[in-house]
């Protein structure tokens, strides 16, 4: 969930910017030669930082993915060998299967934040709305690693909450080593942070529900539309435009998923919770196969880029349709 906090946040902006990419013209001032120099000087730190620590490593990673990369000594050019290895790497593909499950689960899990947002806007008391909203998003303030470690503690086989609870209600035969068994480990990881309300989906659902014009709701009320009917007929259709963004964020979030798995299961047992990020790190840091890790890293990078492009361009088409239409 911590990964949800950062760069994705402004992605909506970015998607819009790229999709439109026309900067409004403003009055141009004639600048002296010295003035121009100052402008460029102001951009030097940005360009240096981004060039050296973002673009260079990304490109270097692509370059070295065609080598048997030994950073300490000599590297041998091996063409597409690393990528061929990748296609035969069962653990890598298994990690993508897990990724698919993680992605599907995170989409299904939106039911809960959606429900919470609907309940919240149903409240008429402003004070209640404020207090409940604050408490619902409070878990966001806890560091991700604390949440993961606490859940690890809840799953603990001997004194964890889940097994204790099952024993207390007489269901001893359901107790298990939640994160230690291949059949339950992935599910155990996915339930970390239940009920998943404190996060970006909830905030987006809530703010788009708040932005529904009052007139629409009043008209619906006059027509005798009930609360549940309103959800299907008004709320959901009006949120559709946000869903594209959320799906994109869910894909990127799933691709970056890793640290909860690292903390709780380290990808095990028997690779049941292996995800691409962990596989990449294992290949590099345990296996010492840097060229192959670079190939995996480049693959992840290209997948993300391709998905971003899909979102940006589908957005452009959608916008063209809506702009040329009713408005």
């Amino acid at each position, binding site marked *: 969930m*911590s990964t949800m906090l950062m760069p994705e946040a402004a992605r909506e902006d970015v998607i819009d910017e790229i999709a439109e990419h026309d900067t409004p013209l403003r009055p141009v001032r004639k600048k002296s030669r010295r003035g121009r120099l100052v402008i460029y000087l102001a951009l030097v*730190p940005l360009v240096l930082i981004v060039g050296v*620590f973002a673009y260079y490593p990304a490109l270097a990673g692509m370059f070295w993915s065609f080598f048997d990369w030994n950073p300490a000594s000599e590297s041998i050019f091996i063409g597409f060998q690393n990528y061929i290895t990748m296609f035969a790497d069962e653990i890598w593909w298994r990690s993508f299967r897990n990724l698919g499950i993680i992605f599907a689960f995170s989409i299904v899990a939106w039911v809960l934040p959606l*429900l919470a947002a609907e309940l919240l806007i*149903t409240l008429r008391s402003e004070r209640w709305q404020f207090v409940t909203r604050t*408490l619902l998003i409070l878990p966001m303030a806890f560091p991700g690693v*604390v949440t993961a470690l606490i859940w690890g503690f809840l799953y603990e086989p001997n004194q964890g909450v889940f097994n204790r609870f099952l024993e207390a209600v007489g269901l001893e035969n359901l107790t298990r080593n939640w994160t230690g068994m291949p059949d339950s480990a992935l599910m155990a990881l996915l339930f970390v942070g239940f009920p998943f309300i404190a996060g970006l989906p909830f905030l987006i659902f809530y*703010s788009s529900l708040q932005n529904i014009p009052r007139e629409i709701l009043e008209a619906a009320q006059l027509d005798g539309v009930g609360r549940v009917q309103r959800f299907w007929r008004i709320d959901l259709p009006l949120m559709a435009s946000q869903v594209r963004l959320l799906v994109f964020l869910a894909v990127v979030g799933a691709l970056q998923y*890793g640290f909860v798995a690292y903390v709780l299961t380290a990808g095990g047992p028997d690779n049941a919770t292996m995800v691409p990020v962990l596989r990449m790190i294992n290949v590099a840091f345990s296996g010492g196969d840097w060229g192959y890790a670079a190939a995996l890293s480049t693959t992840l990078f290209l997948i993300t880029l391709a998905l971003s492009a899909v979102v940006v361009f589908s957005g452009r088409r959608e916008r063209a349709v809506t702009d040329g239409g009713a408005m």
Partner: protein
Amino acid sequence: MTTSTATLTSAKKSAAPASVGRDRSGRQIGVKSALIALIAVSLLPYLLMIVTSVKTNEQFAQSFWSIDFPLHFENYGRAWEQVAPYLWNTILVAGVSIVVVLIVSSLAGFVLARYRFRGRNLIYGLILLLMMIPGIANLIPLFVMMRDLGLLNTYIVLVIPYVAGGVVLGTILVRNFVEGIPQAIFDAARVDGASDARMYFSIMLPLSLPVLGTIALMTVTTVWNDFFWPLLVLSDDSLRTVSVGLQFFQGQNATEVGPLMAGYFIASLPLVILFGFLSKYFLAGVQGGMPGSH
């Protein structure tokens, strides 16, 4: 899922009379109890952490669920000794990252928003492109680069990715914000003879304090939460930041739940307090907008 359908129907029950116009005072007991149930489930793990943090192992074994007296606050003293260095490291790294990110991105965002020059769209486009790529894809090559530069196990290596990520987001946020400031203000300053530097310091910086605050908060949360980078570039325990430090701490104290939970709580507290005071900026940052824009 059964609970969610149950709460949906209860929401319907309590909302339906309102649409008829009855019960305007709005007790909405169904809606409220559903929300309270969701809040309880969300916060239960954290409450359990706090309750357990003042227990000894014996108390934990005997009364697992409830608060048990006497409260053992000395757990906090023991946890603090171990967790405090991680906190100071995190604060130092976050502080340096924030200063660099704010200087670089406020300058660049200002220039990109207010001046037209050759290469402007190219630079901005290259920055936007980076927003599309998660930092995790750079992990391996960036690590090798740092190792080649001999920077592993230093504070510098910790700051680098947060600065590199922060200036990207920061520049975009500052540029969008400064574009929204009316040009008339800058024109008036120009007429009064203000230099470019004067406009940056006296107009742009004071006006963009909210967005700079948002960027600072986002940088703090990133440093606090980032896991893999400090895990991989540090082997020296005295440099560890909170997230990796806590994992190490967990390994050291796994047998003593009281101090363990106290340590988790201490590590969370600074962020929770920040959140409490600045939740408006916090949310604005998460949603990628400005405070009050939603």
